């Protein structure tokens, strides 16, 4: 194993040596390591003095670890620049081909680049943090507690790995440094939002949530490295020269995955849809388990957020359901369409979230909906509504709606799995289009019709059945 890692270190050490000879990298790194922490020390001292005048010591307490996080984050922003040009920069300078001709394995080259883009900025981060902490000691400002410092160090490491691994994926797929810089917004914007979120949590003092952020970022980093390795192709680095949007090619790839080789709609359902659903078996099973977990977590929330329903409200339940029955007359299309569109857009949102998070965030809307259902059921049961009645409020349409949502979410989950699977014969763009086509196929062929039926039941049958049972 160590022998296999040797080329990784050879690549990384050459690159690091190269970076240390480039004044364009050295200047900002030295500045951010040595001067910026002093500025933060000064800011901390001034702020602490100011807020203490007004007795708002808590602001000062929260500011010290926050500035430590900022001091650690700034140098790792340099890693983005280094990582973005790691492959495509070498391609532009023509130095990548001699490297590709050596007996290096793809993963060795990839990890070497990843390591070389991560280590110098991270070292600089740690140095900066050390300088900042040293400044605090000199100024007699107490250091943040040890668990907090460990948390900040871990956050800095995982943020650096996420940024670098994302940037290396971009660098492998881009055709020029310019294109890579343009694509960097896909990393910069989420990371900026992340930093803002972390800052809020830090001032709020909900540090336990920050541990979840560390965990989430670790998963994200692992997935990004996995996706990068899965789709790293020597051929792609040299074969692709132009990045003109080829709509015809995109449509061809999409159509082939969406329609397959069938000739009629009946065949499409018989062969394509059934084949796709079969291929999603494991994803469906996982999504089903996640939905159950969502219900259980929602039901468990009743202990934290119990709302006692007074007997009067319960007595008025039939009256309120009666109003609903009047508002949604049988065969009225508008309520059906409203319910249907609400469900469809939640699933579209899930797809959008899944696209930017390798499907992780894509399962959240389903889990949240199931959590709400679990909580509602538990609340009604605890307040004395019989379980059969509670189920009658949900079950008639949920029998169709929930499987539809599970199918759509499973398609999102599968897209993430496909992205993380090595596909030597296809590009990352091709795989991405295919996974969107598969999701669209499941949505158009199965989920949307099922949701329409479920919405009709929810609007026309469920309220009437509930009214019958409540009475």
């Amino acid at each position, binding site marked *: 194993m160590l022998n296999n890692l040797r*080329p990784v270190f*050879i*690549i990384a050490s*050459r690159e690091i040596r*190269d970076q240390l*000879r*480039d004044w364009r990298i050295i200047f900002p790194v030295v500045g951010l390591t040595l001067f910026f922490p002093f500025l933060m020390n000064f800011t901390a001292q001034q702020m602490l003095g100011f807020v203490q005048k007004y007795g708002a010591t808590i602001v000062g307490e929260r500011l010290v670890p926050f500035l430590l996080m900022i001091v650690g984050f700034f140098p790792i922003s340099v890693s983005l620049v280094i990582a973005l040009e790691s492959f495509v920069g*070498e391609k532009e*300078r*023509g*130095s*990548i*081909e*001699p*490297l*590709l*001709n*050596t*007996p*290096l*394995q793809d993963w060795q080259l990839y990890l070497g680049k990843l390591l070389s883009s991560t280590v110098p900025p991270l070292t600089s981060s740690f140095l900066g943090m050390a300088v900042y902490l040293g400044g605090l000691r000199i100024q007699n400002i107490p250091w943040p507690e040890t668990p907090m410092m460990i948390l900040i160090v871990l956050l800095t490491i995982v943020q650096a790995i996420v940024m670098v691994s994302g940037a290396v994926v971009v660098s492998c797929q881009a055709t020029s440094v310019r294109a890579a810089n343009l694509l960097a917004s896909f990393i910069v914007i989420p990371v900026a939002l992340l930093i803002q979120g972390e800052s809020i949590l830090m001032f709020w003092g909900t540090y336990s949530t920050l541990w979840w952020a560390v965990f989430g970022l670790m998963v994200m980093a692992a997935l990004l490295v996995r996706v990068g390795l899965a789709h790293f192709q*020597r*051929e792609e680095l*040299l*074969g692709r020269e132009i990045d003109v949007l080829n709509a015809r*090619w995109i449509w061809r790839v999409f159509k082939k995955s969406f329609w397959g080789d069938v000739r009629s709609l009946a065949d499409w359902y018989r062969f394509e849809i059934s084949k796709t659903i079969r291929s999603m078996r494991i994803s469906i099973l996982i999504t089903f388990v996640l939905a159950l977990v969502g219900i259980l977590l929602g039901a468990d929330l009743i202990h934290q957020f119990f709302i006692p329903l007074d007997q009067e409200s319960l007595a008025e339940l039939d009256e309120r359901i009666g109003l609903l029955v009047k508002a949604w007359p049988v065969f009225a299309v508008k309520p059906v369409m409203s319910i249907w569109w609400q469900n469809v857009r939640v699933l579209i949102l899930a797809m959008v979230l899944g696209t930017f998070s390798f499907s992780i965030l894509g399962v959240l809307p389903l889990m949240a909906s199931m959590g709400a259902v679990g909580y509602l059921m538990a609340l009604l049961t605890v307040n004395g509504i019989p379980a059969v009645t509670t189920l009658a409020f949900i079950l008639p349409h949920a029998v169709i709606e929930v499987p539809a949502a599970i199918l759509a979410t499973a398609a999102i989950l599968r897209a993430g799995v496909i992205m993380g699977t090595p596909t*030597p014969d296809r590009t990352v763009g091709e795989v991405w289009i295919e996974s969107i086509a598969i999701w669209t196929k499941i949505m158009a062929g199965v989920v949307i019709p099922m949701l329409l039926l479920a919405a009709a039941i929810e609007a026309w049958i469920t309220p009437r059945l509930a009214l019958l049972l409540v009475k």
Partner: protein
Amino acid sequence: MTSRTGRSRDSGFYQMICAENLTKKFDDFLAVDGVNLQVFPGQVLVLLGPNGAGKTTTVRMLTSVLKPTRGRALVAGYDVEREAEQVRFNIGVLTEHHGLYARMNAQEYLEFFGKLYRLELKQIRRRAEELLHRFGLFEDRFRRLGEFSKGMRQKLALVRALLHDPPVLLLDEPTSAMDPESARAVRDAIASLRSGDRTIMLCTHNLSEAEELADQVAIIRRGRIILSDTLENIKQNVLGPAEFQATFSKSLDGWSADLPEGVVLTERGANWLRFRVQDPPGTNPELLRMLSARMEMVTFQELPRSLEKAYLEVMRRAVIEEGNLAQ
């Protein structure tokens, strides 16, 4: 196709480069179309062709950087698709863009690549010293590569390709950026590398270089090998029988004669004549006797048949053929 573990390898006659129906398609563009190549140990194959003909794509497939769409190839007995790592251990490649690291010096650069080829540091240093001396770069070994001239960079890239002493060398335009002196040094080096079991495949536009170095020439156009043979056979087959020129001391006004069978008068000047001779060893003595009997002859020599002439002729025929096919 020769098997790596087969009898032919043991007998020493296996092909160092063997491509069979090698094809590469980028989306709808057919870059290389069914290329067949066979190069034996100690041979130099020159791949000639215009820009965009598919030379570099062919080389990249043979170096396992690009995956063939169809067909297969063995380099040094290893399959370029299935045994890519072994292929790369056994080849030295000089790419079209030498792509050196500007902030490194020559010594560091060679040590870096040597380590990637899993050579010991001592071995790298010894080999680097030998090759840097050979290419006249030894004195500059601690200079930053960014300060190197184009020719020096090209030479260093060649040193890099030779560092691990590979049995197969794939050289893409090895002298393209060099001054005549450096180009001569590189050509001499290539000629000396040919000895032994080393196989060289050379892509070039420089026809005189090709003529000087080639044992075998393959002409590629639009992804297809349109002609592949030894240099002599190509000249013979494309340009026809050898041409000879006889120069006389006096003007040839009114000269005419019955020429021996197999000899055709192709051109004439004030005091010279050119003949195409089907069978020079059999016919030339008679022709010489006849010509010197009539007039005082100053010289009689074979006209050089350049590869350039043959290449241009092959290309001309290919264009005509394509035109006919299009009609």
